[in-house]
């Protein structure tokens, strides 16, 4: 819904709410949950004046056994996704990238992998190999983030997660970030 707001030059007479409001806002007591790290309001001179708080009365929900009663508004598992297997095109490109990589031609490997990425932007293998190529080019920061992108698309796949975290551990080790490498290794070990 769009917003519409306006400026007024004079304050409205809801003085008695102003104190309550200010306390409310500063402490986040009544309407907000615990904040792990309380941020400081950026402009301390701002005074918030409360207007008309309303009590809300809501009934407790009813339990209906056996049948599912609620249709999810936001589907967790889309029903119409067709099975997507690695296409011949992607396989061909991954093979070509592999060859370039073995020949030490990382630039060309990256080009090929980006072609593969455009065809299958959710194929973990693309990101794995891309991360490797950045690692080989000693661009460790980018290598790590590409691998993290890989992690974000292999959720729930234990083996893949382990593989990606091992790669992240290795990248960090090469980059000299021993602490991060250790942490990544520990994460990998969980799978």
């Amino acid at each position, binding site marked *: *819904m769009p917003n519409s707001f306006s400026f007024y030059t004079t304050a409205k007479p809801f003085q008695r709410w102003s104190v309550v409001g200010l306390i409310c806002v500063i402490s986040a007591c009544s309407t907000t949950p615990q904040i792990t790290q309380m941020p400081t309001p950026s402009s301390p001179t701002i005074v918030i004046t409360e207007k008309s708080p309303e009590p809300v009365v809501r009934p407790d929900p009813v339990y209906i056994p056996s049948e599912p009663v609620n249709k999810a508004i936001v589907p967790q598992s889309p029903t119409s996704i067709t099975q997507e297997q690695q296409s011949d*095109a992607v396989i061909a490109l991954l093979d070509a990238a592999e060859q370039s990589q073995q020949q030490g031609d990382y630039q060309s490997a990256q080009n090929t992998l980006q072609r593969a990425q455009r065809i299958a932007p959710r194929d973990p293998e693309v990101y794995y190999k891309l991360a490797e190529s950045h690692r080989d080019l000693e661009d460790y920061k980018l290598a790590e983030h590409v691998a993290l992108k890989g992690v974000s698309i292999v959720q729930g796949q234990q083996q893949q997660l382990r593989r990606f975290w091992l790669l992240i551990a290795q990248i960090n080790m090469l980059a000299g970030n021993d602490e991060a490498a250790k942490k990544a290794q520990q994460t990998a070990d969980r799978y």
Partner: protein
Amino acid sequence: MATKKVTKTSRKAKKTTEAKSSNKTLGLLPKLIFIFLFLSVLGLAYLDFHIRAQFEGKRWAVPAKVYARPLELYSGLDLSIDDLKIELRGLGYKFVNKAISPGQVELSRTRAIIHTRGFQFSDGSEPTQKLMLSFSGSKITKLENYHGQAIALTRLEPILVGGIYPLNNEDRDLIRLEEAPDELKQALIAIEDKSFYRHPGISIRGISRAMLANIKAGRFIQGGSTLTQQLIKNFYLTADRTLARKLLEIPMALLLELHYSKEEILEAYLNEVYLGQEGSRAIHGFGLAAQYYFARPISELTLPQLAMLAGLVKGPSYLNPRQHPERALARRNLVLSELYKQEVIDKPTYLEASQSKLAVVKQASLLKGAYPAYLDLVKRQLREDYDEKDLNSEGLRVFTNLNPISQSKAEKALVKTIESLEKHYGEKVGGLQGSMIVTEPQTGEVLAVIGGRETRYQGFNRALDTERPIGSLVKPAVYLTALENGYHLASPLDDSPFELLMESGLAWQPENFDHQSHGNVQLHYALSRSYNLSTARLGMVLGLTNVIDTLQRLGVNKHIDPYPSLLLGAQGLSPLEIATMYQTIASNGFQMPLRAIRLVTDSSGQALSRYPFQLEQTIDGKTIHLLQYILQETARVGTARSIYYSIPDSINIAGKTGTSDQQRDSWFAGFAGNRLAVTWLGLDDNQSLPFTGSSGALRAWTEYMSKEVLTPFIAAAPEGIDYLWIDQQTGLVSAENCIGAQPMPFIIGQAPTEKTDCARNNVQEFIKPSLDWFNRWFR
């Protein structure tokens, strides 16, 4: 009298001086002749040096060529036959019953046979070949070569979409002599310079004939130029028709012929000659003219088409086939008849060719220069790495991410929506403008840019240069900040009115769009319904600097002042910046630079610079997952629910509407799995609109998206996220079988714990996110 005397005396004196000087002149003559000769030789030597230096060095400033992305073809690709047609039309393919040569295609309802032209890419060449494609719905199901062998992957040649021209706006597309069809060379020689292969650079007969004509006319009207002289004229001299120029032309033509073969001179001529004008762009050379008039490479033109081009040399504007087709036709037929007279073609060929239509393509169907807004973005990104001079003279090749199919659909959708809004609202929205950016959300590649409703107009680029208040598009940044600070989706927020007295003495009193207060609302609900009061309160609690920090981590790369009105979108941003911001949300918290360019190569195809996929995680995946939930809710039941009137339920979409203060700007930003688009509508004079983000920009967005082959946005739950059944009324933990419960994601350890009575008395509450479909996705 006195005056006369003086005159006489001075006359005498003059005579004496003249006599003396004539004696002197006689003595000086040999010296003068010597000096003249010496200077002539010197002059000739200089001319010679000049001619050779120019001819052998860089002959032309060749503008950088800008290409769209090549269309990758493979079995399984989502591409309808209609989409393929857009691409092939852009490439100037001829739709025929039987494809027998490159640049031709046969189409049926479920099959396409494409005879490709082939292209030399920097990472390998695609040969010219005959491809057979089978379609089922909007998908390629089979890709084979003409021998029935399966092809894993191939790509069509990329569409040339523009150039970067030097100040004189000369554009040209160089061809080698062997690429020029024989008929073109023959036609050119037949009509312009019959004795080309025989004369030494100038034609005495031609010059005498011209001089005769000049004497008759009493002024200089004819040049009697050979092709060599014409080349000299275009190449080295100015266009003025003066005798001095003419006199210089002759020795230069002779010198040129002395040094270079007829073939070399002809090749230079083919590339130099001026053949038309498109706005400020001057069309030079036959390579470019073939594209400009027939949208096809010169090698694919027919005899009458080549004859027309050869005829054009005489006067490209007088004979302009688009404006004066009758003149161009008459001139073409004259060329054809010369060819017949000189026995280059036989009678049937002549008759058939002179009967054929001109077949010049409409200027509007040309794609070169059709995407000024996209090209603008390309140029800006290029200027970070290249000098202007390199761009307009070195013949660089720039490969971009422009997707002509998406661009075409986006243009149609935007223009259609604007026209329908104008029809509906009348005068109030006269001159309504709009802009749009389309990206691929996983890679950050920019697929389409529209800078205004006149999509071909090279003017103000609203997609890049307008910084209009973004309204509620800012809200996800406020809520992300909250979710990073311990809030969860069911956290109660206060949506009651308040007034904010600022240092300046002004009071800020935000209102909801419906002018109602909604009391206590859950966090997800407040965002999906775009409530202002709860958002402004939340933002003030979180602190403006923290919200600004989030905006910056989302990719907004500019100074933002910490005014409270920021929380409701008073900050102005460009559609491009919005796209960057939502891109980070779509890609699970990874910030990526939006890239228009893939690669720049030199004229020989050697890579000069690459623009690789880059990213950096700036927002935790778990927090983003929560936000993605709300933005999907917005599309399902919130302010953007109208999306599902025209897009199938199965396509998961996330997005946000935005309307600025006083309803001056109408925005929508949203994404499916494979497309992210930002649309903006508004008036250039900043007047209020009679519609909001939902009823304006969202319509254009949906119109566009519904024409794309979409994949659903997949919100995979990262580790550390659990789904709980939440009672929608109270925000308490409920259970699957309690009425009014919804499954919602929470970061483990930050979920609400208080339960409804229904949940307390009954069982199961946690649900594991189903990864079944997700595993199937990869198998």
